[in-house]
């Protein structure tokens, strides 16, 4: 469900009538400050489905969801965006899939240019990955995410 973001408001002041914003039409959704770049990144790299799923995981999955699910970790989400900024995915394949893990991580899965699966789960401390092409499994810290992203694209 797409909803509109409210502009940042403060109880300390109100704007004069001429400057007050009219309600946006349903086709417009304004990102919060600093969020626009991330939303654009999601749409560009993961498509509308990926963008919508991340939105859903952020806003609708509270602590204790499912059997014992943990709410999406803000650190994991930040790690995910850092990776995504550098990531390239094969153009002729289905857009990557994004999932929420039970421990509050966010997981990205896709196939490389040879159709072999790649999976990365982002957590509060970095990422765990598996690459079927080389049967390689490992983990990186936050500062290794950009390099991992380039490595998995190669």
């Amino acid at each position, binding site marked *: 469900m797409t909803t509109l973001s409210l502009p*940042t408001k403060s109880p300390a002041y109100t704007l004069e009538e*001429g*400057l007050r914003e009219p309600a946006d039409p349903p086709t417009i959704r304004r990102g919060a*400050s600093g969020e626009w770049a991330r939303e654009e990144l999601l749409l560009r790299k993961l498509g509308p489905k990926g963008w919508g799923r991340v939105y859903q995981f952020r*806003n609708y999955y509270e*602590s204790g969801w499912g059997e014992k699910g943990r709410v999406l970790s803000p650190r994991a989400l930040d790690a995910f965006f850092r990776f995504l900024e550098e990531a390239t995915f094969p153009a002729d394949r289905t857009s990557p899939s994004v999932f929420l893990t039970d421990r509050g991580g966010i997981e990205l899965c896709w196939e490389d240019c040879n159709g072999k699966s790649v999976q990365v789960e982002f957590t509060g401390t970095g990422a765990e990955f598996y690459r079927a092409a080389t049967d390689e499994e490992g983990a990186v810290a*936050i500062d290794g995410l950009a390099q991992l992203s380039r490595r998995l694209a190669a």
Partner: protein
Amino acid sequence: MSDGFPIQIPDRLPVHIEPCPIVQAIFETRFVSPQPWATMPGLLFAHIRQKYPEQKTLPMAQLPEELRRQDPALLILPLIQFLSDTFLIQLGPRVVSLMTKPNTYPGWSAIQQELRWLLQQIKAAGFVGETERLSSRYIDFFAGDIFTALRLGLQINDQPLRGTQADVTTFFRRDALSIRLQVTNGAIVATKEGPTPGSVLDVDAWFGPLDVDLFGNGLARFAEAHHAIKGLFFGLIKPELLHKLNPTYE
């Protein structure tokens, strides 16, 4: 978009200005919690009630939780307020903030002391899981049109746009700090003399989840954000306005 920070910060910043334009200062943390919302007010109040004996339910609390959950902007709003003589504490399912009372800015030293105390109480209450965002926000009010006194303005056909109502919002990054700057000359503020039209400078500076841990470096990050806002303010205002504020330097 440029990577460089476009505002020149002066080397020396005043320690005091008079009259003080600060309407309100807000020090906020957003977090995720393993606790359900219903338990959180009680958990916090148990630790702050001697200093903040009065509590008030905010209007947003009247909205059913199902409706609040449908809009992410509503999820981060506070639902309850605790009051002391000098400060307000606001609490919501994903947010806690310390606010100065309108038009009574007590000074950074007093705020830092209160923040230090409050963080200890929040930690003891045990409902904050992971920190999502930590910010300092300052709202300043000026009579008249602030755009004439700032190094920021709008242009049409390369000519300054003057004498019209304007509301400008822009976003900067400075290393780990994100800054939202909003300037308007069409605001109405509740002052001691009643509702007063004029201009507002609203600056919100925040750190994201990978750069802050409320109980680790939270106090230092509040101070960093405060200092960045102070530098931005004095970097934005023209000398004529600075002179009118009778700055005192150390």
